[in-house]
C-alpha cells in the first residue's frame, strides 16, 4: 500500500493542478464558447441560436472600431517598442560598461501597473493643463495638443503610454540577447573589416532572431489583452473611439447585459491570440527537441 502511494505520489501532487487546469481553463473556454452560441443576456440561458451572436458582433460598428483600433495600436506599439528597445540595447551594449543605473531607469515603468500608467499620462496629456499648456507658456500660444479628447487621435495616446510602459522590457530582452552573443563572432567580423553597422546587421541580429520573435509574441500578447490602460487613460472614449476588443467585451458582458455577445467577442480574442501563440509554441517546442 505504501509502495503504491509512493509510486503514484508525483501524479497525486499534480492532480489538483491538472483538475484546476482542466476545469478553469479548458472547461471555462468551452463554457464561454457554448455561451457565445446562445441568446444569453443578463443571465446564461441555453437555447442555442447558432452563429447569431457572431453575426451581430460583426454587424456592430463599435466592434469594428475596436478591431481597427487593435490593429493600429498593435502595429504601432510593436514597431515603436521594438525600435526603441533594440536601439537602447545596442547603445547600452556598445557605449556603457556599467549600465546598471540606466537600465534600471528604462525598465522601471514595467513595474508600474497600467492603471497608474494611464493615470499619469492622462494628466500629462491633459488638454488644458498638461503638455499643451507647457508649450503655450513657452510662447507658442496657438499650440494645440488634445489627442486625449480627439476621437481620431485618442488611440495614439494609448500607444504612447504603452510604449513608455513596455519598451524597457524589450530593451532588457535584447540586451540579455546581445550579451549572450559569442564574442568570437564579433571579433571575426571585425577582423574581416566589417563596419559596426554591418556587424550588427549581418552577424549579431541574425543570432538574436529567437529574442526578436519572443519580443514580438509578448508585445502582441500585451496588445491584445490591453484593457487596464484604455480604462484608465481614455475609458474607451471619446464615445467609443478608443475601444479595444477587451474593453468591448467587458462593457457588453458586464455593464450592458449582453452576455452572449460578450462571450462571442471573447472567443474572437482567443482565436486571435491562438493564431499567434500556437505557431510560436509549436516552433519553440519543436526547436528544443531537434
Amino acid at each position, binding site marked *: 500500500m505504501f509502495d503504491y502511494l509512493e509510486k503514484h505520489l508525483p501524479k497525486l501532487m499534480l492532480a489538483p493542478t491538472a483538475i*484546476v487546469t482542466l476545469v*478553469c*481553463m479548458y472547461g471555462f473556454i468551452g*463554457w464561454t464558447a457554448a455561451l457565445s452560441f446562445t441568446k444569453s443576456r443578463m443571465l446564461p440561458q441555453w437555447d442555442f441560436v447558432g452563429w447569431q451572436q457572431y453575426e451581430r458582433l460583426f454587424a456592430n460598428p463599435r466592434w469594428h472600431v475596436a478591431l481597427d483600433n487593435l490593429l493600429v495600436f498593435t502595429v504601432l506599439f510593436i514597431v515603436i517598442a521594438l525600435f526603441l528597445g533594440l536601439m537602447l540595447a545596442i547603445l547600452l551594449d556598445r557605449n*556603457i560598461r556599467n549600465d546598471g543605473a540606466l537600465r534600471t531607469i528604462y525598465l522601471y515603468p514595467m513595474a508600474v501597473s497600467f*492603471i497608474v500608467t494611464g*493615470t499619469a499620462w492622462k494628466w500629462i496629456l491633459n488638454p488644458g493643463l498638461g503638455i499643451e499648456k*507647457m508649450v503655450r507658456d513657452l510662447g507658442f500660444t496657438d499650440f494645440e495638443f488634445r489627442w486625449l479628447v480627439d476621437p481620431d487621435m485618442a488611440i495614439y495616446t494609448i500607444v504612447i503610454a504603452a510604449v513608455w510602459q513596455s519598451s524597457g522590457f524589450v530593451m532588457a*530582452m535584447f540586451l540579455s540577447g546581445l550579451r549572450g552573443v559569442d564574442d568570437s563572432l564579433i571579433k571575426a567580423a571585425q577582423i574581416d573589416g566589417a563596419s559596426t553597422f554591418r556587424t550588427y546587421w549581418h552577424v549579431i541580429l541574425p543570432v538574436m532572431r529567437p529574442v526578436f520573435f519572443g519580443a514580438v509574441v509578448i508585445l502582441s500578447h500585451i496588445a491584445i489583452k490591453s484593457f487596464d490602460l484604455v480604462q*484608465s487613460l481614455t475609458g474607451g472614449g471619446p464615445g467609443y473611439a478608443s475601444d479595444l476588443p477587451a474593453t468591448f467585451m467587458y462593457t457588453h458582458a458586464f455593464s450592458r447585459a449582453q452576455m452572449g455577445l460578450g462571450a462571442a467577442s471573447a472567443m474572437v480574442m482567443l482565436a486571435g491570440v491562438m493564431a499567434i501563440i500556437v505557431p510560436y509554441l509549436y516552433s519553440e517546442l519543436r526547436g528544443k527537441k531537434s
Partner: protein
Amino acid sequence: MSSLTLSKKLYKAFFITLLLVFALAYLGPLYVMLTTSFKGIEEIRNGNILALPDALNGSAWVKAWSSACTGGDCFGLAPYFWNSMRIVIPALLISTAVGALNGYVLSQWRFKGSNFLFGALLFGCFIPFQVILLPMAKLLAWLGLANTVTGLVLVHVIYGIAFTTLFFRNYYVGIPNELVRAARLDGAGFFAIFRHVFLPLSTPIIVVSVIWQFTQIWNDFLFGVVYSGPGTQPITVALNNLVNTTMGGKEYNVDMAAAVIAALPTLVVYIVAGKYFVRGLTAGAVKG
C-alpha cells in the same frame, strides 16, 4: 583609449547623450507625478507641468491616503491598499508553493503524460482572460465567494500557477536527475528529497516567482474590477474610481499622490530586487 580617433569619441559622446536624454524621458512621468502631488491646486492651474513645487505641500498625500472619494465612499486609498495586501500575500505564497511542487514533479519525476500536462498548462500563460471571466464569475458565486477577498485570492492562485510552475520547472530541469536517484537509493522519499535537496537550491527562483506574482497580482485590474464588490476592491480599482470620480473639482495633486501610492510597493520591490524582476520577466517570456 588613446587609439580612439576624434570622430569615434564624438560618436560615443553623442550616443551617451542620447541615452541620457531617453533616461530623462522615461523618468518624466514619475517626475511629473511626484511634483504634481506636492503642489497646491492653484499652483497646478497657473503653473507649468514641469515646474518644481513652490513648497513641499503634503496635504494631497494625506487626502489620497485617508479621505479622497473613490466612487462610493470617501476613506481614501488606505482600505484598498490593505485589501490588495490581503489579496496579494496569500495568493503569491500559495501559487509559489504549488508551482514549486509542480515544477519538481514535471522536471524530476516525469511520468507518461507529464509533458503533455505541462504543455496544456503552459497554454494558460497566454489565454486572454476575457475568455474565462464569465464562467469564473459563476463559479465564485456558486462557491459563495463572489465579491470577496478570498475569491480574488483563489482566482489569482488558479491563473498564477501556470507561470510559477513554468519558473520552477525550467529551473529544476537544469538539476541532474542523478541527485534524485542517489537520494532514493539512500531511502529518501519524494518529500524528503524536495525538502533537503531541492528547496535549499531554490532561493533564486523562489525570489523570481514571488516578485513576479507580487507585481502581477498587485497590478491586476481585470480580475479586481470584475470579481470585487464595494469594500473588497483592490487598490488599482480604487485608484481608477478615485481618478474618474466626477464629483466636485478635479484635484490633480490628489490623483497623482494616489497613483504614486498605488505604484509604490511594486516600485520598491523593483528597486530592491531589480535583478530578479528582470529574470522573471525574461524567464516568463521567452523560455517555453
